[in-house]
């Protein structure tokens, strides 16, 4: 007895091993980075693709979902790419990353005085030790895979005391059916204030795979607004990770809007390294057809007097599967932590599913932590109330669903971004029922 069942590698895992072997010498970076790539790939091989028994990935079984892996994107590709504007009317600077390569000629860097922007490959070449620092404690196969195969991305440095009024968009574009591994590094100095916007898009019908890892640090008293829009092509796989550490009195507000991709997972890991920091973490998922979208959250209260607020809303139509996994950890010394997490799912169709695992892990006694979760359909009583006032059913439903999502979107506390995201939500609802079966 007690024999470990032998785990066979899947076809996707085999392909990745071959690809890494073939690409290892072409991948950018100093010898130290090359060594780190080897270690990361070994770590990936040890873990394998996450599967049902990989607890943090319980509901997103990549081993089963990723049947094949498209070719790696290395070097410049997508020359003729046209970058769509998903957020018309929202003023922002724009850094365009195509298949992992930073493309200054497609970007708009105006209004970013004082901010340093470099292609990540420069940092890899210099062996910048900040690369890999924030993700080091994560034992996550997808992040390890990214560390092994990352080809580029951007590095943004916001100096101390800078007040950047214009939002900075990192537009991640995939041009064709490739696998791109993107790494970004965002460093925000003390007392700085900045708004970051992460967008993700690619061609419809193309089975590309985007694995984006962003490492960020926010200094003391920094004020950060960070919004992510995942609007990948309908056949894509999106695996996005943000690992951020926040310091003394940092205010960090984050919103993820998930609406694209066939299979997507957005993971956000927030670590408190200084006292009296506050994080607001919000999410809105809108999916339909056979889409699968997973938002995973790890909040690590490592020091006392931290506060976190989480509100996640998911709307599932068609046969879609929405997932939320949240974990708040309060470490033994993190007294006076105040953590509150709420997750709500709205199922618009008989065949939709919602899976939630909101977890609290608490080792300090002087804390106030709570979480709640609900799942259900549109409240018939409220719907009837609207119908009785003469509002047509479709309109009434749109009204209620928009209101449902708005609470999370507005939690971010940024009116301009909030308005733009709500517009996306309204558009999504307007096309309800029109999607291909």
């Amino acid at each position, binding site marked *: 007895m007690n024999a470990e069942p032998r785990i066979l590698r899947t076809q996707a895992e085999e392909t990745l091993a071959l690809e890494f072997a073939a690409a290892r010498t072409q991948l950018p970076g100093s010898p130290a980075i090359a060594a780190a790539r080897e270690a990361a790939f070994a770590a990936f091989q040890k873990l394998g693709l996450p599967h049902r028994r990989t607890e943090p990935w319980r509901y997103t079984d990549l081993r089963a979902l990723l049947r094949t892996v498209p070719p790696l994107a290395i070097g410049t590709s997508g020359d003729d790419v046209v970058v769509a504007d998903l957020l018309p009317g929202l003023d922002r600077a724009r850094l365009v990353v195509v298949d992992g390569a930073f493309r200054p000629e497609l970007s708009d860097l105006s209004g970013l005085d004082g901010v340093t922007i470099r292609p990540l490959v420069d940092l890899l070449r210099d062996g910048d030790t900040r690369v890999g620092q924030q993700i080091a404690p994560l034992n996550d196969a997808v992040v390890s895979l990214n560390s092994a195969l990352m080809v580029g991305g951007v590095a943004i440095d916001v100096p101390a005391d800078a007040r950047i009024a214009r939002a900075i968009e990192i537009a991640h574009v995939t041009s064709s059916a490739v696998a791109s591994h993107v790494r970004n590094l965002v460093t925000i100095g003390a007392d700085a204030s900045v708004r970051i916007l992460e967008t993700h898009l690619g061609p419809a019908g193309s089975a590309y795979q985007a694995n984006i890892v962003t490492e960020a640090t926010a200094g003391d008293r920094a004020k950060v607004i960070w919004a992510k829009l995942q609007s990948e092509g309908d056949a894509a796989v999106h695996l996005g990770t943000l690992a951020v550490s926040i310091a003394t009195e940092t205010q960090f507000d984050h919103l993820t809007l998930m609406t694209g991709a066939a299979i997507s997972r957005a993971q956000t890991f927030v670590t408190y390294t200084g006292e009296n920091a506050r994080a607001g973490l919000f999410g809105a998922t809108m999916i339909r057809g056979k889409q699968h979208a997973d938002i995973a959250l790890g909040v690590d209260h490592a020091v006392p007097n931290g506060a976190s607020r989480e509100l996640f809303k998911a709307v599932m139509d068609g046969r879609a599967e929405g997932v939320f996994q949240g974990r708040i950890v309060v470490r033994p010394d993190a007294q006076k932590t105040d953590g509150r997490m709420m997750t709500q799912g709205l199922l618009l169709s008989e065949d939709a*599913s919602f899976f939630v695992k909101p977890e609290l892990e608490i080792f300090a006694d002087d804390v106030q932590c709570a979480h*709640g979760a609900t799942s259900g359909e549109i409240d018939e009583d409220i719907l009837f109330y609207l119908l009785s006032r003469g509002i047509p059913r479709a309109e009434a439903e749109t009204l209620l669903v928009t209101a449902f999502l708005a609470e999370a979107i507005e939690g971010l506390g940024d009116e301009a971004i909030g308005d733009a995201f709500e517009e996306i939500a309204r558009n999504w609802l307007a096309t309800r029922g029109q999607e291909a079966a």
Partner: protein
Amino acid sequence: MPAIQETVDQVRQIDVDQYKYGFVTDIESERAPKGLSEDIVRFISAKKNEPEWMLEWRLDAYRRWLTMTEPAWSRVQYPKIDFDDLYYYSAPKSTSGPKSLDEVDPELLAMYEKLGIPLREREILAGVEGASDRRVAVDAVFDSVSVVTTFKEELKKAGVIFCAISEAIREYPEIVKKYLGSVVPVTDNFYATLNSAVFSDGSFVYIPEGVRCPMELSTYFRINERNTGQFERTLIIAEKGAYVSYLEGCTAPMRDENQLHAAVVELVALEDAEIKYSTVQNWYPGDKDGKGGIYNFVTKRGDCRGDRSKISWTQVETGSAITWKYPSCILRGDDSQGEFYSIAVSNGYQQVDSGTKMLHLGKNTKSRIISKGIAAGRSDNTYRGLVSAHRKASGARNFTNCDSLLIGDKCGAHTVPYIESKNASAVFEHEATTSKIADDQLFYCLQRGLSSEEAVALIVNGFVKDVIQQLPMEFAVEAQKLISISLEGSVG
């Protein structure tokens, strides 16, 4: 409030280890040789005079168990158990099977008296006011065997079968064959499979159609022998429209080494039937340094097989070094209901990983989960629960509330709920909080003249009240005392 005062007084009389059931009874016993093998399985089966089919069932389980690995997903830590270093069968020598009370070893009767479990029917009748509604029939299980079952005759008149499971296997093989392993399959999990191979005794209850069991049924489990694993098996069947309330209590002596307890409980409720199952688990928790104590690895599951059936689990968990149990409900019948009310108290070095699963399969099924975890000392207390709605479970409803209370800054309280809905009309609500007894709440009580111990007892009693109310009255009082005793010394 007399209950609190009484509790505090009682606590003061108890020594550091606080565990009042920690005595060993000097009973000559007969044991199987140490270790586990097919021969041991055959030995147990032979001791019980089991029919061939039962032996085969056990051997199948044993062979399956050999291929399985211990689960590692729960938040409990313990040194590897050497399954070959345990005794799998131990019986008091003087009782080779259930007998009438007169033949039971006086030492044993004295022990149950000391535990406060009345086995003498006459005493019960004489001792309690309004005896006709207050009687409780008891099946007493000592190490591996059922030593006595009270009120059997009277229950028989009502058509109720209440006996040791070993007796049921011989006397009612058709019923046992039909239901044993039908809720917890032989291969369900490592410990359930082990139990299926080596279970030695336990209780069997059968309530025929339309019968409301005339009294509470109760099983009292006692581990006495050193190095003995206790593997009891309980099977309760409520036929159409039947009702039964069943109570379970457990204690063990203080031992330096850890003892294994791996029980399986299966409940089957047919149409319109209701089963209420209450547990006060007070196995020896180990001493103040975390030495000794029971490993309580239990599989409990109820199957609401018939429409409109109802199964309700209530548990007060204060004992054991490690508790790993998830009394669950399979809500198969339409309009069936499942309930789980739990209080889990951990102190010292205790580890609790407990919760429930509510599997909504039928239409308009309802479930309710109220869990109150209290962690003190250096303990870890985890609630782990699953609520799921199957595609066809239209109109399913769940309400879950799990609250944790931390006393002291060396303990941990964890909440791991899984919520899975595959039906739009299923409405699930989950809420959880973690907090400590607020300083100002405590001060308010002190200002009114309560001592800090009394204040904590009062606040904790308030915290767990929703669950205590679910227990039968005799158990409720006992449970309240037990909780206060378990928390003794937790406020510094």
